């Protein structure tokens, strides 16, 4: 029942934000509804941990380990970003305040779509949910209606919506393969149970089409070009959602499907996933060296991390799968923190250029130390959680005997590490460009940064038992051997 509730809450919130007398209360409604969904997602996943699976409506809404993990991540990032939006959206010069209800209405609709995709069991409806995610995020990216924002929204729309019919073709082919093999009502579980007897050619074609279509939405190279634009021009709370979880959800679908293809004996798809994953990591890492805009820097780091997750899933061993899902978790919480920090800096100095931010730690000790913390965490320095999951992926690769992959991945991760820390170092230290600009940061933004930093610091030193067993369950869904 909690699963159905989880999906109705954001819809009700969107309607409430739209009702005229409540339009000024959009922020309050969004914060309450998103925290409520977070609590419900925790409930669902603790249920999954104890029972292995939660069924809302059989054949329609079901959650297993992997979907429960994605649900928790999505709702966590959404609730933090909602808190952050309060102070941030009020101070934005470009956005006219009387349109703010439209922002929150869209935000809750996006929340609905993001939560629907992992909890649906019928693949064709998952396609619809992923499409809705794209459409609502396009509206949010273009919300500020500046030239840059509209251009970013247009590129984002054309490139990612173009992926939609291609992925649809893939889903229809999957349906065909499933029915030719004698399947009944189509669910992820059902497909996986008869994957061995499905026509491998059809399965491969449909995976290829879905990979192209949803890879564009995930921001995998070479279809990543929209990502830095959209993630640098969107309002910062939206960036946190886009980079943290909007990229993770299509990747979740790809991974689900990958596990099906891996269950089919003749298809050797893992090698291709490794190659394409490494290409993304490489493009992300080298572009990180030469960015000039700190929001774009965090965006390229997303391309890099999506590549790492894909590579890990391509290795297809149990240990690598565990690394992949931990990386998903750690990336989502760390990257959203990075964008809150970027939003704070943008509010304080109103510039996006790395070169015009100097001595931040003296201008604003809060923003400066938060920047250092989040950059160290996203670059993967110990003792932060990303270090742990990257390390476990690398060691899983060693155990699988994929030495070349490990060597390439490790050196690319080091390049990205150096690049991020070079930029962060130049921003945090040095002589301040502005001497005594002490902008009062809104309380809601400070709270969001502190609260988002908490799990990033904690998970590096201590992983609670329920989180660990959820990760184990999720990893098992990826079907590594």
């Amino acid at each position, binding site marked *: 029942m909690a699963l159905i509730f989880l999906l109705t809450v954001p819809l009700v919130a969107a309607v409430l934000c739209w009702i005229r007398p409540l339009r000024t209360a959009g922020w309050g409604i969004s914060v309450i509804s998103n925290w409520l969904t977070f609590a419900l997602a925790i409930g669902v996943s603790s249920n999954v941990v104890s029972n292995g699976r939660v069924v809302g409506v059989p054949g329609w809404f079901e959650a297993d380990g992997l979907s429960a993990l994605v649900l928790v991540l999505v709702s966590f990032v959404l609730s933090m970003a909602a808190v952050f939006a309060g102070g941030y959206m009020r101070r934005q010069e470009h956005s006219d305040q009387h349109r703010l209800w439209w922002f929150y209405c869209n935000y809750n609709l996006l929340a609905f779509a993001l939560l629907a995709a992992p909890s649906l069991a019928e693949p064709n409806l998952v396609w619809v949910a992923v499409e809705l995610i794209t*459409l609502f995020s396009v509206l949010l990216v273009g919300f500020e209606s500046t*030239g840059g924002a509209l251009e970013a929204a*247009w590129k984002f*729309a054309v490139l990612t919506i*173009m992926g939609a019919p291609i992925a*649809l*073709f893939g889903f*229809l082919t999957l349906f065909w393969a499933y029915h030719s093999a004698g399947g009944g009502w189509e669910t992820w579980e059902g497909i996986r149970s008869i994957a061995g007897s499905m026509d491998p050619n059809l399965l491969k074609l449909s995976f290829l089409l879905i990979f192209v279509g949803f890879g564009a939405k995930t921001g995998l190279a070479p279809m990543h070009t929209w990502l830095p634009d959209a993630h640098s021009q969107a309002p910062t709370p939206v960036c946190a959602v886009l980079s943290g979880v909007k990229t993770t959800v299509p990747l979740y679908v790809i991974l689900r499907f990958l596990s099906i293809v891996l269950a089919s004996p003749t298809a050797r798809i893992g090698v291709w996933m490794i190659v394409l994953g490494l290409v993304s990591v490489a493009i992300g890492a080298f572009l990180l060296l*030469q960015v000039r805009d700190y929001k774009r820097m965090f965006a390229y780091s997303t391309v890099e991390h999506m590549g790492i997750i894909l590579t890990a899933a391509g290795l297809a061993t149990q240990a690598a799968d565990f690394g992949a899902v931990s990386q998903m978790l750690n990336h989502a919480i760390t990257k959203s923190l990075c964008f809150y920090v970027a939003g704070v800096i943008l509010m304080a100095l109103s510039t996006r250029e790395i070169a015009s931010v100097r001595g931040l730690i003296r201008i604003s000790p809060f923003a400066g130390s938060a920047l250092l913390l989040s950059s160290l965490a996203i670059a993967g320095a110990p003792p932060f959680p990303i270090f742990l999951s990257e390390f476990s992926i690398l060691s899983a690769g060693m155990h699988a005997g994929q030495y070349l992959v490990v060597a390439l991945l490790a050196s690319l991760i080091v390049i990205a590490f150096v690049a991020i820390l070079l930029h962060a170092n130049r921003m945090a230290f040095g002589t301040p460009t502005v001497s005594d600009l002490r902008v009062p940061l809104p309380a809601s933004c400070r709270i969001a940064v502190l609260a988002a930093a908490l799990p990033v610091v904690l998970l590096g030193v201590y992983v609670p038992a329920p989180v660990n067993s959820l990760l184990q369950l999720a990893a098992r869904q990826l079907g590594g051997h």
Partner: protein
Amino acid sequence: MASATAEALNTLCAGLILIAAFAMVATRQVQGVVRFFVIQSLLLSASCFLLAYSRSSVHLWALGAITIGAKVIAIPWVLRRLLPDDFYERREISQAVNIPASLLLALLLVVVAEFLTGPLVATAKDSVIRINLPLGLAGVLIAVWSLVARREALPQLIGILAMENGAFLAGIAIASELPIIAELAVAMDVVLIAVVVGLLTRSIRKELGTTVAAGLAELKEEPVSWR
């Protein structure tokens, strides 16, 4: 009417859908592109009804009706409401590639689609799949190409929607028993694409005064100077 006749007529429809895709590549007038899209959608629903008749499938009757509702009525109406007349009155003088070359490439894409689907079609028992799958994929590929070659915003949007038509042409043959609810959701989604991209196009016109999407090139990566 025997079901063999229905299938022969379906083949005719599928061929005409492909010709409509070619027409969308060849047309300069923006208004013309929209018209050919509507014609293509009408043909798609006709193909749907013919197959529904020959297989006596309730799903396909419903899908045909949904296609007419969404793509022949709702989408053109939404775009008319959202976009002012000057979007429709424009002619594209400069495309990225000239039209004869574009058409040649589209022809090549048909061959590619035939080639790609060859091994799959060979095993299919159903003769409809043998027609609809390659032509559907060709429709998708040609629409992708027209999306790349076009500069105006509205034809680009129509290109995306035409891709969807291609996917559906294959879909009615290979996935005719798709649940009605999924079909409805997909159709609603297509209309929403038109609404969202239409809204976006309108605000781009309002803020930047252009209907040409190719003019948007402010955001790009420039190398940093390491001092």
